[in-house]
């Protein structure tokens, strides 16, 4: 297969902090260094972009020396955490911003969809916006005219097509905007996570359309999403970005597996109490093989290892965990009587496990407590341990963005009449 995108030694530096005072002097120093043929004094190559750590300079490399090729007809999922460099890569590929070093070579027409409805004007009607948006995305007027009926049909907002889009519901807006993009005639299509909005039915329709694009028409698609289910369904290749570098470039299943394993060290998965007077000494989140990590597949169990000190007076107390979802709702609480674990004071380690296929994909945090029920709270460790249940191809991807609760219940359904 022919290569359609070739990325070589691509890096992108960003300046941190405020741009304003001092810009002129620094610009001058930079200019001065360049005219003497020296290196940019503010660009220290080699520093890793890790937002959780304090760096030396105020320049970070959002992408660091990236190399990859993409072949015609591939559907490539670009996966990575927030800040891994996905958006930067897409911005450079879409020519919104230029790289700091390196180059990208592209064969064929490229269209990017970093946002649906770019350039929509609220005062213009749906039809007028189709033309405007199409033209912004690089279509000629005649081309849009030819496809107008199909676009309107795909959007399903025919009744409102001569109404200004400011009167549209947000769902209709997205439908119309995606419909325009779906009919782009480019050889390469770049799609950012734009499907997070819109209703489930339409999301499915879009995913189907995108599947057609890559499989049926031999087009190349680059797709960025946090939604592993959608990536698994659409893509055959995956590129995983981590701190601005390529962590893995391979087939999509390998990619998704690797994704759930990385970044564990950046998330708070371990807690060490610096003042272990009261009880808790150490807490960690673990997977099935006792490895500490933060990301778990829906079909994996999640364990918490707790080491704590039990004083004689607290032997009749409880140790408990409380799990919260990202909306700060308490999902459940689990408690254990300490005297059922040990019968004399001392240091113990316990492991509590949440069974697999219980928590639906999403972010969770856990708090830990030692207490004498209804008498005294000995210690609460809150807001230090986080974990995430990651979508790995279950049916939940369709519900991305919708709040459908955090517990999966395998209910019994049967026909009674």
């Amino acid at each position: 297969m022919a290569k359609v995108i070739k990325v070589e030694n691509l890096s992108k530096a960003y300046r941190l902090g405020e741009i304003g005072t001092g810009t002129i002097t620094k610009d001058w120093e930079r200019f001065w260094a360049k005219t003497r043929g020296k290196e940019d004094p503010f660009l220290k190559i080699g520093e890793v972009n890790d937002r959780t750590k304090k760096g030396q300079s105020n320049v970070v490399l959002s992408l660091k020396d990236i190399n990859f090729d993409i072949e015609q007809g591939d559907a490539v999922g670009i996966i990575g955490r927030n800040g891994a460099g996905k958006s930067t890569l897409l911005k450079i590929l879409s020519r919104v911003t230029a790289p700091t070093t390196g180059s990208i070579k592209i064969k064929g027409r490229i269209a990017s969809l970093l946002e649906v409805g770019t350039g929509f004007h609220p005062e213009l009607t749906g039809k007028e916006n189709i033309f405007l948006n199409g033209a912004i995305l690089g279509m000629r007027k005649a081309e849009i005219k030819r496809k107008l009926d199909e676009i309107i049909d795909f959007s399903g907002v025919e009744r409102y097509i001569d109404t200004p889009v400011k009167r549209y519901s947000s769902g209709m807006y997205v439908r119309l905007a995606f419909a325009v993009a779906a009919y782009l005639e480019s050889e390469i299509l770049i799609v950012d996570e734009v499907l997070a909005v819109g209703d489930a039915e339409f999301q499915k329709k879009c995913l189907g359309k995108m599947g057609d694009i890559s499989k049926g028409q031999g087009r190349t698609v680059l797709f960025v999403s946090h939604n592993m289910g959608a990536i698994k369904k659409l893509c055959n290749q995956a590129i995983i970005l981590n701190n601005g570098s390529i962590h893995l470039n391979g087939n999509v299943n390998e990619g998704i597996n690797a994704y759930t394993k990385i970044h564990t060290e950046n998330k708070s998965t371990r807690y060490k109490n610096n003042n272990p007077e009261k009880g808790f000494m150490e807490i960690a989140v673990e997977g099935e093989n006792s490895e500490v990590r933060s990301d778990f597949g829906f079909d994996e169990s999640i364990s918490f290892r707790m080491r704590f000190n039990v004083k004689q007076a607290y032997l009749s107390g409880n140790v408990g965990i409380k799990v919260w979802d990202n909306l700060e709702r308490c999902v459940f609480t689990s408690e254990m009587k300490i005297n059922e674990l040990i019968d004399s004071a001392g240091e113990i380690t316990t492991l509590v496990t949440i069974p697999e296929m219980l928590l639906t994909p999403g972010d969770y945090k856990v708090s830990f407590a030692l207490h004498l029920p209804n008498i005294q709270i000995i210690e609460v460790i809150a807001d230090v341990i986080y974990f995430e249940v990651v979508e790995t191809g279950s049916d939940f991807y369709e519900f991305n963005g919708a709040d459908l609760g955090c517990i999966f219940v395998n209910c019994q359904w049967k026909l009674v009449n």
Partner: protein
Amino acid sequence: MHYMAEEWDIEITPRNSLFDLKLKDVWHYRDLLVLLVRRDFVAFYKQTILGPLWFFIQPLFTTIIYTFVFGSLANISADGLPRPLFYLAGITAWNYFADCLTKTSTVFTANSGLFEKVYFPRLIVPLSVIVSNLIRFGVQMLLFVLMMLIYWGKGAAFHPTIYILLFPALLLLMAMLGLGLGMIISAMTTKYRDLSFLITFGVQLMMYLTTVIYPLSTVKQKYPTYEWLVEYNPMTSIIECFRYGFLGQGTFTMLSLAVTTGITILILLVGIIVFNRVEKNFVDTV
């Protein structure tokens, strides 16, 4: 296969060559230009009662005020022309230039939402500004011609000359000058916002250095030491020629027009180069 040269349609590199103006790209997106102009026009009069009539109101009232303040109160010469006609000629021409300049100068900051999300040749946007303003200018010219006819009927003393034929060239010069200066400023405002504060009052100051409210002949007579300040301003000879063409009064030479043309082309070229240079990375600093 070993020797087959690889062919690529697009190459994305840190910097473009300085003189790659990407005009071919601009041509491909010409439909977008038309649609943007349409959008600006529609968005301007939607939900207003008077609609395009607003284009008339502003120059009309400015003329009335100028006639009163600079004419009746300050008694500044109007080259022997009817004052309202004299001022309206200056205002109409100046407004077109000033609108082009101020609107172009905010292209990057005003459209950053769009520019951050999708690529198209950025030059399309300032060009659409120039064309949008042309509609407005057209309406204001209509007002000017209407006034001329009214004064003609009253038997006022003015005589259009053959230089009226230079009108399209003058219009082009004003557009190019506004575009060029606007693009230079817009490129600089992406980093240094100070300039956007400077521009509104800078344009106002520049108007007083141009022969909008006084004729060049008065400056030559009364302030020969400062005459160069006004005369070297490229807008001066454009407006003087404009007045001479339509009203038969104005001080300019073919040489001064030629110099203006030269300066304008230079500014426009610098503008496009600076603009193209900034458009690649402005998203990071805006």
